[in-house]
């Protein structure tokens, strides 16, 4: 029961703080053009890697520091506080990398892990399909097994973040059409420069083209790119998704905290009824409730992390964390808009220090919080059936 940072966490925090103070780029330097931005962020990741500040919780043998989950969280929080740009390779670092560490062959580890850390390879995740969102096991992308044990992939993935910038994609594909849905899926590592891959960027409501549709037309993949067992992909994917849910909330909390602190300052600059909005009781109460939500998100996350460290793996509670995150993020984003009053839906002409468009972006982006990584409704089914023991029924 130690809320205070231990010596290792403190040392790491000081190290990260010192590096970030000297190295975080001025936000004005970050290009607006998405492609240029990706290159910029890749270079940023390489610098972080040079300082040993990415993949901290990876084993030392694979280029990490073998840091504890809490040390990783401390560093993430420092990055948020310092206003550091996002780490572009997060799918590789948080999702694919840990799966490679656990399930990969020596050759796969040697080939991929260091390049994930340095940002040389950006990864994307080819899980969701048009007909397989919440019901992921219904996926239809097919990988035909060739005589030499390789694969030929045909299918269509959607909501694939960073696909147009990724060198590699972790694809879930059906390798046994006759097996029950969950048992006929394999986890295949696909080179995005392969012949037969077509990427169609999807513009999000925020205006960013962060994700894409990816079409696979007879894409050939060698046998050595299978991760884990043939037809054993479902367990790997579920494991990484639960890992992602397990402590993602704590990291996200640190980012949201910085945003809310900024909103308090904006509410000082804004006027409502001729007075600073922050002096308005209802605005204060709205921001206070958002603040409370963020704190509880942190408390919930730290409790889950404590449990995860004790058990050695994330438990079903990660579904609770995910619901809390979606709810808190959306309520916070709405609170920000509400505090902005007359300017909330405007752009030009706001008072100095107030940026309604940034908050509109926060609000629009927050809508994804109850959808990605397994929708809130899927998490509630998991909670109801697997935690509360309620009987399964019609969906």
């Amino acid at each position: 029961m130690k809320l205070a940072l231990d010596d290792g966490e403190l040392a790491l925090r000081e190290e990260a703080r010192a590096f970030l103070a000297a190295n975080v780029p001025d936000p004005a330097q970050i290009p607006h053009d998405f492609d240029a931005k990706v290159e910029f962020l890749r270079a940023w990741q390489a610098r972080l890697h040079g300082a040993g500040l990415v993949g901290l919780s990876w084993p030392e043998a694979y280029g990490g520091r073998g840091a504890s989950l809490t040390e990783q969280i401390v560093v993430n929080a420092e990055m948020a506080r310092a206003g550091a740009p996002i780490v572009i390779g997060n799918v590789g670092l948080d999702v694919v990398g840990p799966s490679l560490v656990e399930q990969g062959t020596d050759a796969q580890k040697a080939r991929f892990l260091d390049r994930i850390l340095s940002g040389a390879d950006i990864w994307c995740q080819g899980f969701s399909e048009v007909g397989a969102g919440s019901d992921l096991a219904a996926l239809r992308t097919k990988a035909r097994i060739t005589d030499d044990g390789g694969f030929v992939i045909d299918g269509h993935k959607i909501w694939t973040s960073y696909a147009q910038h990724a060198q590699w994609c972790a694809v879930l594909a059906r390798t046994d059409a006759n097996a029950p849905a969950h048992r006929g899926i394999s986890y295949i590592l696909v080179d995005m420069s392969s012949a037969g891959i077509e990427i169609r960027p999807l513009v999000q409501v925020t205006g960013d083209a962060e994700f894409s549709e990816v079409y696979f037309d007879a894409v050939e993949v060698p046998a050595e790119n299978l991760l884990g067992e043939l037809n054993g992909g479902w367990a790997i994917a579920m494991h990484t998704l639960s890992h992602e849910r397990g402590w993602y909330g704590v990291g996200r909390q640190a980012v949201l905290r910085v945003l809310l602190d900024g909103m308090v300052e904006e509410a000082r600059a804004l006027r409502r009824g001729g007075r600073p909005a922050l002096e308005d009781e209802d605005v204060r109460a709205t921001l206070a409730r958002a603040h409370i939500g963020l704190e509880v998100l942190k408390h919930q996350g730290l409790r889950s992390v404590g449990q995860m460290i004790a058990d050695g793996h994330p438990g079903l509670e990660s579904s609770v964390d995910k619901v809390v995150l979606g709810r808190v993020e959306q309520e916070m984003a709405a609170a920000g808009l509400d505090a902005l009053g007359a300017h909330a839906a405007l752009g030009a002409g706001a008072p100095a220090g107030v940026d309604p468009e940034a908050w509109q972006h926060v609000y629009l982006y927050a809508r994804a919080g109850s959808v990605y990584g397994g929708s809130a409704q899927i998490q509630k089914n998991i909670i109801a059936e697997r935690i509360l023991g309620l009987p399964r029924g019609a969906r």
Partner: protein
Amino acid sequence: MKLTISEDQRELQSVAREMLADLAPLSLARAFLEGKGDATTLDQQLGYLGWYAVGLEDDGFGVQGLCMLAERCGAQAAPTALVDTAVAARIAAAIGGDDELTARVAVGEAATALAVVEAGADWTLAGVEATLRAAGDDLVLDGVKVGVQAAPRVDALLVLAEHAGEPAWALVPAEAAGVTLLDGHALDPAADCRVVELSGVTVPAARALVGDDAGAVERALRVGAVATAAEGVGAASAALDLAIEYAREREQFGAPIGSFQALKHLMADAHVDRESAWSSVLYAAAALDEGDAEAAEAVAVAKAWSARASRAVVEAALQVFGGIAFTWEHDAHLLQRRVLAAERRFGDAIQHERALGARLAARRVGAPT
């Protein structure tokens, strides 16, 4: 930097679960509802078990341990003075000195009820009209307090009163001359509330806390706030457990109602509420135990969030039961009453949200944390 509980605390939790289920079944709360409640055995056992003293010393249980006990008291809607006594002990310790009653309260040996709320005064401690005035070497206490829990069964009352324009506290033996207990009917019958009239009650100076430069009262009230939050979470959570059990058994349309997604999601949301509330309670209690600089804020967060969450949880539970939980004979409303009562004590959600709003406004971004 993580939130965990120790083996000893886990053990305390499990002992509390068994003991309170045994000592305070919901039938005891119901007896209070019917006006024939008798908590003598429960009171005695809590004393024997040393639970009034949990967290006072460096006992390895801490305020977290107290919250675990309070959570279980809530789950049984138990008529106890546990939380009040824990708070009173901390204020009595600030009074100090060698007065015997004060010393007994300070170590958790004397069950004590807090007398704070008045017709025009609440848990912000503002607006108090009860007075504590000098009278020779002693002080004299006058006023009317409401919502004094377990008042007929405690050894002492710790009364908030105004002295020289400041809040002050007076420790009064329950049977002192000038103390009159009046009917105090309240929503939660097992809280066993009384209206307390104090008329010319003599208070030796050694039993009064006048001025609180060290902030002992604030710290004590924070313990009360987080423990009461735990009590509310416990009550709400127990109601949810009953509802889940019911939803597995009760059939409509040829299937257990718990298999219907509409009810599943209602209960899953309630589960998220109770877990997040419990996380906030454990965190705030740990912050108090560790002397964290942000403990006051953590307590306000926990109390505000838990108050709203606990009510949502118990309301979801009632909805699952349908009409049956709307009847006097069903136990759910005993828990509902405890949730609503706990929500108010030591400051409601509005009070704590307002305090947090003021802190946010006063804080400048970029200040060191």
